[in-house]
């Protein structure tokens, strides 16, 4: 199938569907017609898209953790604990890493070893192995909107099974689940595979079932400048909408400077509205998600609570529709459910204390919004041009050319030429813009910002500055200055 940003026909989709459902024995239990009926009976309070729309209307910021374990009953207990003890508004099912690489045999082995060990030896829930029936046990035992969160380049079978089982939201995208999550899978391949997922969601929409879709905003989660992740988010939003998705949440990972973070969420919402409308997808409902700090955390729990709180504050002041919450165990690996609930409660307290406080649109905030929008437009317009009017084709060519480039990405299809670092106020800038198609003004802006910091620290921007910035928050600072 040739890659282009065009809605698949039913025939195109169905031809591939048979292959997909045959990838693992549990695939045969997916029955689309039955699944539509099943969804028709899911009440509004468990409906992800409806919950998001209500929150956006009320100006609320909803909380959502990450969580997943190998076995069904344990997973149900975990989610219910996070709902009651963590007061979570939205619940996830984080998928294990074997499933993300379509290694279902290894996942099966992980299930069996977990049964033997009496604790989860998988870092998530192997939904494909558990199949529609198993996943439905989760759906029917947890009274909250449920989303699949993963990092799966080819998430077609996972999507078929979990959506058929009653999940109402699905994370991922052809770029955002490739570049940070794969090493040598081509972008053509993943974009096509995610067109499949989006088309599947579009098919549910044609039958009156609204499933929320969420491209993964933070990408590598490591000093990603807002314009870089925004460009990817808008492209993935457009690709999803073209396949018929009607409810999309676009995301951004906290950088740490408050003004930049608030500006980023506002710019993302404005850009998404602008581009979706321009390309004819104005019937798509958009919401936003803010990810608390995705980089290294302090090992000390008290300090980790500080980092979590700052992310909660930024999310609330930016009025993001939801916030993905970290835990005080972040630096130490996968958290206990108690630590997960603590992170959620800290976040909830902060959000509730801040919900009545509007952050004023200051000239500094507006300037930052303008910069982010100008940069993102440079990238998006160049992608569109490279693709001769097609964002799917353009995205592939843009990554080849470094017009799209994600710092610290494992994928060999990301050029890895840009180098980000913080400016003197802690905002994430670029000391090497690589091949990003910025105007001379924007390039000068970044150069000046980096020079300003270099001067303050008496050193030239270098890779060491980047390393210092990467470790800074885990060592208790935002900016990695020489000490």
């Amino acid at each position, binding site marked *: 199938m040739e890659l282009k940003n065009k809605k698949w026909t039913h025939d195109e989709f169905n031809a591939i569907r048979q292959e997909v459902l045959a990838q693992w024995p549990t695939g045969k239990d997916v029955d689309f017609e039955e699944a539509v009926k099943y969804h028709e009976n899911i009440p509004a309070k468990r409906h992800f898209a409806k919950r998001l729309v209500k929150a956006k209307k009320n100006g609320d910021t909803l909380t959502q953790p990450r969580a997943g374990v190998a076995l069904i009953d344990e997973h149900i207990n975990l989610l219910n604990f996070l709902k009651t003890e963590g007061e979570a508004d939205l619940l996830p099912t984080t998928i294990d*890493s074997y499933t993300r690489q379509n290694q279902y045999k290894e996942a099966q082995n992980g299930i069996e070893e977990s049964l033997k060990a009496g604790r989860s030896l998988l870092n998530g829930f192997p939904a494909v192995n558990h199949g529609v029936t198993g996943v439905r046990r989760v759906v029917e035992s947890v009274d909250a909107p449920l989303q699949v969160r993963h990092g799966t380049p080819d998430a077609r079978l996972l999507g078929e099974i979990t959506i058929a089982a009653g999940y109402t939201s699905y994370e991922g995208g052809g770029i955002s689940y490739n570049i940070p999550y794969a090493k040598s899978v081509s972008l053509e391949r993943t974009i096509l595979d995610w067109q499949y997922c989006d088309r599947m969601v579009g098919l549910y929409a044609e039958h009156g079932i609204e499933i929320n879709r969420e491209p993964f905003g933070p990408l590598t989660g490591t000093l990603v400048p807002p314009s870089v992740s925004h460009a990817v988010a808008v492209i993935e939003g457009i690709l999803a909408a073209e396949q018929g998705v009607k409810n999309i949440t676009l995301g951004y990972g906290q950088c740490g400077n408050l003004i930049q973070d608030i500006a980023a969420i506002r710019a993302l919402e404005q850009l998404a509205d602008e581009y979706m409308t321009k390309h004819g997808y104005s019937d798509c409902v958009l919401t936003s998600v803010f990810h608390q700090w995705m980089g290294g955390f302090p090992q000390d729990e008290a300090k980790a609570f500080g980092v979590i709180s700052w992310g909660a504050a930024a999310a609330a002041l930016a009025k993001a529709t939801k916030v993905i919450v970290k835990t005080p165990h972040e630096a130490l690996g996968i958290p206990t459910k108690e630590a997960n609930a603590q992170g959620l409660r800290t976040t909830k307290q902060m959000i509730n204390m801040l919900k009545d406080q509007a952050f004023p649109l200051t000239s500094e905030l507006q300037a930052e919004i303008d910069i982010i929008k100008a940069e993102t437009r440079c990238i998006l317009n160049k992608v569109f041009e490279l693709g001769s009017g097609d964002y799917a084709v353009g995205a592939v060519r843009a990554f080849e050319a470094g017009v799209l480039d994600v710092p610290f990405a494992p994928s060999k299809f990301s050029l890895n030429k840009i180098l980000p670092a913080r400016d003197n106020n802690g905002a994430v800038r670029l000391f090497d813009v690589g091949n990003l198609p910025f105007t001379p003004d924007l390039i000068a802006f970044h150069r000046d910002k980096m020079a300003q910091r270099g001067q303050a620290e008496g050193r030239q921007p270098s890779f060491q500055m980047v390393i210092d910035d990467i470790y800074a928050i885990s060592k208790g600072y935002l900016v990695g200055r020489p000490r």
Partner: protein
Amino acid sequence: MTNKVKVVLGVIGADCHAVGNKILNHAITAAGYEVINLGVLVPQEEFVNAAIETDAKAILVASLYGHGEIDCRGLRDRCREAGIEDIRLYVGGNLVVGKTDFKKVEQKFLDMGYDRVYEPGTLPDKVIADMNEDLK
């Protein structure tokens, strides 16, 4: 031809955490080693093959995503079978799911045949200091 000590570096299993890998690559290279960096998503076999091909003195295995226990088991045997039983094996990261006493985790990995086991949050300097002691 270089006479630098060679080491193989990579993130094992289905794990795609690339940031620490890139920083370690940079830091260990800067410390005077030749790094054969296999990047992320590396199977055991690839570590062993790369070590044989390059005559590396050590394999540095990272696992950040909690599956370390399953992924890392058997690497020492595989080295032995391939005839490089004396190679140094380093391992570090978030090696198990859940917050666990590091002493127990360390013992488990020492028993699996690893020579050095690092806890979460270890900085490159510490690893390099150990390498200087073990490999030079």
